[in-house]
C-alpha cells in the first residue's frame, strides 16, 4: 500500500521491476525521489507500476486473506484510476443494480511484517496501530515476521493481534527491525532518518554512495544500524 523509504532504496538500487501501491511518498516529508526518478526518468531502470487507492488495496488484501478471488468496494468510479489500474472491474449488485468496483485479490508470494514479539513456538504478537499486517500475513504464500523479542510466553496486551505459529513460515528476532519506522513499546520512529532521506535520495550519486556504504556494505541489520549510528532501541548513538 504505502511503499516508503525502504522501497525507495530497493527501487534506487534497481531491484524492483514492478510496484503495486496506493501511496508512494515519504510520510511527513514529501517525495520518494528514487521512486520518482524511476517513474519519470527510468533511472536506474524503468519500473512498471500498478496503482490503487488505499481502500482498494485493503480490499485486495482482505480478499486474498479470505480465500476469495475478488473484493468489492464503493470506489474507483469516476476516477482516472479506473482507466489505468489493472485488476479493477465494475460489477452490478445482483440485488440493487448498483455499480460497484471489484478488485482482484492479492496473494503475495512473500509477506514480511515486523512485530513486537513471538513466543518460542512462533506465535506472533503485534499491537498498536495494526494497519494491514494481519491481512498481509494471511494473504501470503510465504509469511515471515521479524520481531523485537522472543519470549517464553505472550502476555495479553490491549489491542494486540496474535498470529498463530501455524500460519507463519518463519519468525526471526531482529531488534529495531522496523527502522526507520517503529515498534510500539520497543523502538522509536527515526524522524531524522526520514528527513535525511529526502536529502540523500534526491541526488543519484549521494544515494549510490549511501546504499553502497550502509546497505550493500553491511552484513546484517545490526551492522546497518551501527553504520548509521542508530541503537537497537531507536536512539542515536555516539554522534
Amino acid at each position, binding site marked *: 500500500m504505502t511503499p516508503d523509504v525502504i522501497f525507495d532504496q530497493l527501487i534506487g538500487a534497481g531491484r524492483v521491476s514492478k510496484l503495486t501501491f496506493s501511496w508512494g511518498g515519504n510520510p511527513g516529508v514529501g517525495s520518494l525521489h528514487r521512486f520518482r526518478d524511476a517513474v519519470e526518468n527510468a533511472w536506474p531502470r524503468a519500473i512498471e507500476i500498478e496503482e490503487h487507492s488505499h481502500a482498494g488495496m485493503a*480490499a485486495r488484501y482482505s480478499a486474498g486473506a479470505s480465500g476469495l478471488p475478488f473484493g468489492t468496494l464503493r470506489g474507483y468510479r469516476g476516477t482516472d484510476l479506473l482507466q489505468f489500474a489493472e485488476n479493477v472491474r465494475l460489477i452490478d449488485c445482483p440485488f440493487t443494480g448498483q455499480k460497484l468496483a471489484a478488485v482482484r485479490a492479492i496473494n503475495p508470494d512473500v509477506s514480511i511484517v515486523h512485530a513486537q514479539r513471538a513466543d518460542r513456538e512462533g506465535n506472533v504478537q503485534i499491537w498498536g496501530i495494526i494497519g494491514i499486517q494481519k491481512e498481509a500475513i494471511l494473504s501470503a504464500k510465504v509469511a515471515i515476521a521479524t520481531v523485537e523479542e522472543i519470549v517464553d510466553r505472550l502476555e495479553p496486551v490491549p489491542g494486540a493481534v496474535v498470529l498463530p505459529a501455524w500460519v507463519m513460515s518463519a519468525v526471526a528476532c531482529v531488534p529495531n527491525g522496523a527502522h526507520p519506522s517503529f515498534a510500539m513499546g520497543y523502538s522509536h520512529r527515526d524522524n531524522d532518518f526520514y528527513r535525511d532521506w529526502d536529502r540523500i535520495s534526491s541526488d543519484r550519486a549521494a544515494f549510490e554512495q549511501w546504499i553502497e556504504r550502509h546497505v550493500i556494505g553491511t552484513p546484517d541489520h545490526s551492522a546497518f544500524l551501527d553504520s548509521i549510528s542508530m541503537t537497537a532501541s531507536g536512539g542515536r548513538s555516539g554522534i
Partner: protein
Amino acid sequence: MASDGKPTADDVMIVNAARALGDLARVGRATCFVGIGLPSTAANLARKLYDPAPVLIYESGCIGSKPTRLPLSIGDGELGDTADAVVSVPEIFTYWLQAGRIDVGFLGGAQLDRLGNINSTVIGSYHAPKTRLPGAGGAPEIAAAAGRVVVVMRQTRRAFVERCDFRTSVGFGDGPGDRETLGLTGGGTGLVITDLGILEPDPGTCELVMTCLHPGVSREQCLDNTGWALRFADDLGCTMQATDEELEMLHRVRSGVAS
C-alpha cells in the same frame, strides 16, 4: 507565524479550516477523516478551540485520536495511544468511511479543478509524467463517501486548473448529477480553503466560486491565481481576521504543548 508576528498564508488557511470544522461540530458530531500535514494541524487546532470538539479519525485505523503533539505520519504511535479505538486498515475503510460514518474529509492535492475534482497522482501524462506525485492514498474514497469534503490548498494558477491532468478524487465529476450517477454517497467538495479565501460550489452548476476573501486579498489576486475564469459570489464575504487566541493556540498545537 511569520517573523513580523503576522499570520502566514498557511496560518490563515489552517485557522479557517479549523473554523469550518468547528462550525460543523456545532451542528452535530463532526467526525473528521484527517490526513497528515495542514489537515491534521487544522483538525487538531479545532479540537483544542471548540466544544463540542470534532472527532479525529486517521486512515491508519485510529478513531477519536487526541494527540498531544502533531503526528509526523498516520502511523504515529501517539495517534493510537490517544484513540478511543484502533481498528485495522481494512476496517477503517469499510465499517467507518465507506459506511458513511465520516462527516468531514479534509483533502489536499496538487491540482483542483473548476468542478472540485482533485489530482494527487501525476502532473502531465500518466505514462510520461512531468511530475510523479505520491498517488491516491485514502483520498478517492474520502472524496466519495465523506459527508462534506473540505479542501485545503494554496491557490495558484498551476494548481487551480480548468481540468485536472489526472482525476484522482471526484468532486462533482463532469457536472451536476454526476455524483449520483456514479453512486458516490458523500456530499462532494463543499468548501475549498485557500491562502486567498474560500470557494464553494455553485448549487446549480457545481462550479467552484469564490465566496469569501481573506482580509486584504483582492479579486485580482484571485483571478491571477486561478486557471479558470473564476466567478465571485454576489454576496462575496470576507473571512474574519485570525484572532490572537486562534494564532496562540495554533502555535501551541504546532509546538506540541496544547495537550
